């Protein structure tokens, strides 16, 4: 008979970050230490604030990607989707500004959200209903979104209307009690995402679908619906990132968001989410995004890397960060 009195204590999972998931944070800590040794300015409040604020875009998009990847998918279209959404949003705001003034900004945000959810839905349905490998499906839509923004801009630039610029500026440059707004936004997104992934039915199903599609099906989960929804969440995250992004650069161009998809996937994987699905780590993803941005920052702040070799050093650091992350697991 089972000796229940002697039954082992319960596992705590959920919000708290278990020791086994500490990998990305250790890698981050190592990086910060190295950064400080190379250039003490690295730890200046100003620099840290800049870097973390910048990492917000990738972090927010990567949080969405955590869902997609945990559910066994992959989305290569996020970078060009971000560019496309930015373009749509700016076009809409510029069109609305003359009639509604700065109210164009919240309206534009709403338009961005709706558009990006539609984009996510498109990706999701191609993958689930079309039954096409996510890699290929989103490579296709990546081309589509990129072409659309090129078309919208006629190969040039769409800048945000001057009348809106100042009103919109604080969304990137403002702060609340000294904390830059993009950081707050990404924290909020991460909190909500962690809640959804760890504390809701949907989150459970998402991970189950990624871990074993058959088990999910036999457990009465609609695999297609769960997967599609993950792409929609990804879309929404892209919209949020775009909303924060617009005031920073003030324009959409055909090169906006180029290769973000690689950064996003790297952030997710460094964060401890398994690329084959079945495991999602929201806070790890955030750490991963910050790590990537710190690496880039370090390249600028340190002086001994030839600018031709920056990419090589970054590649090496990413591999080392993954090794630290791996080894900390066991």
């Amino acid at each position, binding site marked *: 008979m089972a000796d229940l009195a002697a039954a*082992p204590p319960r596992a705590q999972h959920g919000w708290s970050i278990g020791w086994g998931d500490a990998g990305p944070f250790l890698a981050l800590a190592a990086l910060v230490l190295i950064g400080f040794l190379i250039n003490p300015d690295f730890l200046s409040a100003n620099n840290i604030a800049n870097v973390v604020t910048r990492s917000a875009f990738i972090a927010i998009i990567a949080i969405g990607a955590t869902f997609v990847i945990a559910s066994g998918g992959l989305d290569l279209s996020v970078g060009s989707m971000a560019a496309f959404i930015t373009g749509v949003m700016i076009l809409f705001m510029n069109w609305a500004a003359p009639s509604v003034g700065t109210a164009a900004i919240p309206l534009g945000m709403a338009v961005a959200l709706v558009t990006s959810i539609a984009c996510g839905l498109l990706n999701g349905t191609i993958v689930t209903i079309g039954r096409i490998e996510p890699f290929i499906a989103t490579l296709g839509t990546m081309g589509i979104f990129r072409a659309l923004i090129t078309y919208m801009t006629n190969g040039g630039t769409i800048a945000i209307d001057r009348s809106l610029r100042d009103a919109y500026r604080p969304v990137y440059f403002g702060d609340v009690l000294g904390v830059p707004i993009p950081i707050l936004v990404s924290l909020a997104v991460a909190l909500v995402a962690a809640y959804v992934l760890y504390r809701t*039915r949907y989150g459970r199903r998402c991970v189950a679908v990624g871990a*074993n599609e058959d088990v999910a*099906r036999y457990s009465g989960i609609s695999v297609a619906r769960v997967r599609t929804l993950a792409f929609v969440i990804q879309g929404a995250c892209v919209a949020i990132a775009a909303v924060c992004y617009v005031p920073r650069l003030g324009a959409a161009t055909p090169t906006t968001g180029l290769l973000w998809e690689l950064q996003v996937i790297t952030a997710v994987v460094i964060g401890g989410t398994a690329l084959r699905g079945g495991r999602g780590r929201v806070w790890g993803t955030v750490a991963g995004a910050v790590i990537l941005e710190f690496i880039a920052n370090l390249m600028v702040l340190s002086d001994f890397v030839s600018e031709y070799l920056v990419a090589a050093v970054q590649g090496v650091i990413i591999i080392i960060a993954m090794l630290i992350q791996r080894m900390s697991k066991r």
Partner: protein
Amino acid sequence: MTAAHAALAPAGLPGPVLRAERLAKEFSGVRVLSDVSLDLRPGEIHAVIGENGAGKSTLMRLLSGYLKPSEGTLFMDGAPAEFHAQADAQAAGIALVHQEILLAEALTVSENIFIGREIARFGRLDERAMREAAAAQLAEIGCKVSPNDLVRDISLANRQLVQIAKALLGTQRVVIFDEPTAVLTHDEVDPLLDIIVELKRRGVAILYISHRLDEVERLADRVTVLRDGRMVGTYDAHGLTPRRMASLMVGREFASLYPARQDPARLGQDESTPALEIEGAHVPGFVTDVSLTLRKGEILGLAGMIGAGRTELFEGLLGLRPSSFRAVRLHGKPVGFHSPAQAAKLGVGYLTEDRKGKGLLLEEKLAPNLTLAALDRVHPIAGLDLAGEADLLDRAVASYDIRLRSRDAKAGQLSGGNQQKLLLAKVMLNEPSVLIIDEPTRGIDIANKSQIYAFIQSLVREGRSCIVISSEMQELIGLCDRILVMRAGRINGELAGDAMTESNVALCATSSATNEKIPGRNIDG
């Protein structure tokens, strides 16, 4: 009866080929096996028995080089042996038939059998030689699949046979069978046991794990009993009855396996609407025109040989594979399921026979596995109720007697039998009024079997109804009120009351009274 230890081996017999001394194994600090010593002589069948989670599979993995012992030593032909990888053990002539199916689904049967030791001439694979050797090996153990079939397309039972064929290929000195018969039906078991006896005759040393104690009685020369990771002892099998084995395993006297049958009269009188009626079921390639009725409060058995189409019938019913039905009525109301979720909502639960591939998330912890199909139960407005979920797990652990060493364990780390119990608990969480159990006691030890039987009885006593698909005839006979026998995708006979005998079931399952082939599928292939 006295414990006869290895040292007491009769003189004149050859020395042990494989000997284990004081083996112990820990998984991340949790000790699952301690101080186990046993030896294996050429030409003997040495059975290892014990409750679910007693450590049998772990011991087998240590002996065959899949795991490294935390303590203790292995001796091969008297000399200390250390297996750094499974390949070392393989080279030494030790083969293991895993309890869990370990085959690559995307590859063919012949490819799977020859993974890692492909036959090649001048660097070029000799497909024909491999196919022929595979076919011969498969034929020898009575497996009717073609070497060219994809493993994905063959039934679980056949996969097990393929796995056995794979292990037996080549010259072996020690063959370890970890519950080889758990997924086999009566008719497949016999040829396999013949093979094992033949291996023994050739001087191969055989380690045999099974929860089917009658098989152990039939085959074994010596029996080692494990309980909670420790040795109870090694016994001479002569005169060791299944009942005595069971008592040694559980550490107390063991009563009866099957619960008292319910009063057949009561069932007959109950003229209320049937719980489930299926008319004209077609599952392309598997099932042709099957109709059946499950009465309220009844345990209906479904017997048949491998490939009879029992599993497919119900997977079709739940919308898990393409199928068509003339009519399906649940408690008299016409229904049609397009997903297990919808079926669950209407009170129909299905427990799959493939716990590893379709039942549990092996890399996930226990609680998420338990509640996966019934998340609504742990989802008040404010998100998942993790405490409530943990309570559910506690309750499941208690009522299904799931043995675990750590609550942090992943489902894949449970022993096979305990995985099965977890799966049962998972399906029951939806409190189905009609429960379809595919192979309810596959890999479950005798003590827990009787618990599960009692559990099924108590279900029907509560007014629920149950369909039991099983390859163990005795189980069906002991448990069910009525048995339908399927053959080649059709119902070939119905047995009830005293007609429910092994020979009748076997006859129905094999006789070709209706000798038709199912369209679109080659049964013999």
